[in-house]
């Protein structure tokens, strides 16, 4: 059956009615994955998925994820399934345990059909830095535009209609930016809301589990499955899990929404501004209060360099275990130090090495006050400023990008440029403050999609999803798939 644009809920209903079986769904998804032309996959788990389907327990068939094919970003551990983080460092590595999100999805009956490409070890935002090369944007049949990263393969797999749900991770904007480039809903719940057990750490204080779906309802049901305390992750929250679908259809009368002028005015593409402002009119027509507010421009411009220093410094420490000794692609050497140095030198890609160097440089005794600690202090100023906004508003609403997906040939391979557009690099504020943050499509320009982002205060997912759902009703942009096979 042609199921490319179906949502999780639609599949579920078809399965219940007996119009399609989980086996048929999974076989179709695997066939599409094998014909993927966007470099979305690190590994297609055909044998494992078919085995999982065989073991499905029919008494769970009322679970919404029962029999639904899904993909997992390749920086989540999957027991007995190779997991590389798209790094040569981990070629051949097969985890002996599964990450908590994988366990929860499997418990619901979801079928993992593959592991998806990423920027190496989730560092990078273009989707061009993995060990298998660039991942392409299914909306661009010429393969010249990026889909964005680091969760590039997950975005490409769902956008190309292979699966209706994909797990990613988001340390700066790694799900919410590709979501904009690929006409998807990309959702990063509050820091601690979903267990990170089994996710390769990049920057522990900023890393979040996040995911892609085709509509807001699917995002809500996924959170119902994934949220909750996990003793294996000390940073996971004890806060009670809600039914995140319960407020989706509430009206948004009286909801207070802030648009940041400085972000909006840095959007390069006038079509994005035009469409965005129309959505603001529509939100107001539904009696939400939307106000355009000013924030300190210099503080907003400090988000990216602050993010780079903190994330690189944390990565330097987190990735110290990648030495080729216990696992990984070990190189020759006469001493164990030589083995480690040769392995790290040969197996890390250029961008990773440079990012780790930024971390090492920032952590030098003579530099730590002026780089690492100052970045951490700046983070507090940034979070304080956004917390003040959230005292007055239920959500912040802004375009997610400055333009549609750029050309691969225009991608800068620098870690940080002298000049950058605020609208392209502000979303990391939500990682710094741990805020729930969701991107969804609002329009197209010359065939390429663009999205807007809503962010709210910690643990206010129900309010956020409610506003997002209304926005989705306004735009009518949901269940979008880039191409027919």
């Amino acid at each position, binding site marked *: 059956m042609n199921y490319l644009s179906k949502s999780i809920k639609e599949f579920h209903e078809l399965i219940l009615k007996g119009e399609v079986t989980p086996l048929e769904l999974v076989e179709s998804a695997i066939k599409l994955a094998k014909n993927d032309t966007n470099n979305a996959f690190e590994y297609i788990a055909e044998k494992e998925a078919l085995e999982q389907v065989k073991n499905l327990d029919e008494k769970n068939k009322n679970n919404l994820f029962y029999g639904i094919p899904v993909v997992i970003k390749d920086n989540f551990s999957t027991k007995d399934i190779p997991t590389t983080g798209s790094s040569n460092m981990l070629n051949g590595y097969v985890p002996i345990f599964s990450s908590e999100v994988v366990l929860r999805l499997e418990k619901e009956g979801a079928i993992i059909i593959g592991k998806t490409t990423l920027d190496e070890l989730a560092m990078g935002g273009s989707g061009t830095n993995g060990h298998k090369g660039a991942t392409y944007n299914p909306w661009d049949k010429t393969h010249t535009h990026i889909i964005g990263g680091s969760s590039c393969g997950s975005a490409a797999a769902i956008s190309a209609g292979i699966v209706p749900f994909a797990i990613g991770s988001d340390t700066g904007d790694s799900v919410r930016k590709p979501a904009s480039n690929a006409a998807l809903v990309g959702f990063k719940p509050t820091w601690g809301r979903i267990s990170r057990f089994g996710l390769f750490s990049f920057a522990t204080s900023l890393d979040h589990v996040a995911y892609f779906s085709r509509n807001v309802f699917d995002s809500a049901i996924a959170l119902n499955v994934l949220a909750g305390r996990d003793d294996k992750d000390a940073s996971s929250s004890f806060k009670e899990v809600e039914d995140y679908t319960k407020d989706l259809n509430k009206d948004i009368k009286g909801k207070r929404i802030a648009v940041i002028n400085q972000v909006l005015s840095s959007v390069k593409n006038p079509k994005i501004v035009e469409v965005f402002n129309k959505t603001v009119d529509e939100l107001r027509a539904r009696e939400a209060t939307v106000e355009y507010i000013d924030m300190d421009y210099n503080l907003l411009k400090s988000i990216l360099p602050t993010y780079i220093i903190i994330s690189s410094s944390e990565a330097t420490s987190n990735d110290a275990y990648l030495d080729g000794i216990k696992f990984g692609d070990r190189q020759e050497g006469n001493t164990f130090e030589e083995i480690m140095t040769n392995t790290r030198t040969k197996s890390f890609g250029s961008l990773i090495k440079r990012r780790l160097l930024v971390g090492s440089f920032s952590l030098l005794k003579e530099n730590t006050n002026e780089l690492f600690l*100052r970045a951490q202090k700046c983070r507090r100023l940034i979070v304080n400023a956004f917390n003040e906004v959230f005292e007055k508003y239920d959500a912040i609403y802004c375009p997610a990008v400055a333009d549609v997906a750029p050309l691969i040939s225009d991608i800068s391979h620098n870690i940080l*440029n002298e000049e950058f557009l605020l609208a392209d690099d502000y979303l990391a504020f939500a990682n710094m403050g741990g805020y729930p943050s969701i991107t969804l499509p609002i329009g197209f320009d010359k065939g390429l999609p663009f999205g807007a982002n809503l962010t709210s205060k910690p643990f206010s997912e129900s309010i956020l999803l409610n506003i997002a759902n209304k926005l989705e009703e306004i735009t009518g942009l949901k269940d979008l798939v880039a191409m027919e096979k």
Partner: protein
Amino acid sequence: MKKVTKEVIEESASKIMIKLSDDEVSHLVDEFEIIVHHMEKISELPGVDDVEPMTFPFEVYNSYLREDDASLSTSRDELLKNACEVKDGQIILPRVIKK
């Protein structure tokens, strides 16, 4: 703060057990100058040095003690499954004390 030089880059690299090519070092000198420049601008933000460094997104106060149960355990064989060379339950590495 240490001035960005080839030597400082190499010192930073050796601390994290990475060797760099000459091209990579020279690229990094340029990149570090940009990063340092951005951080200098941040140092001018009003009040930036008057706040405590932020290490996590928000404060989480827990006052519980878990039971001292060995709830998660993994066998030695499993743990060694991904190691390159193993003998008698140990990972083989070059001798530290030469004969």
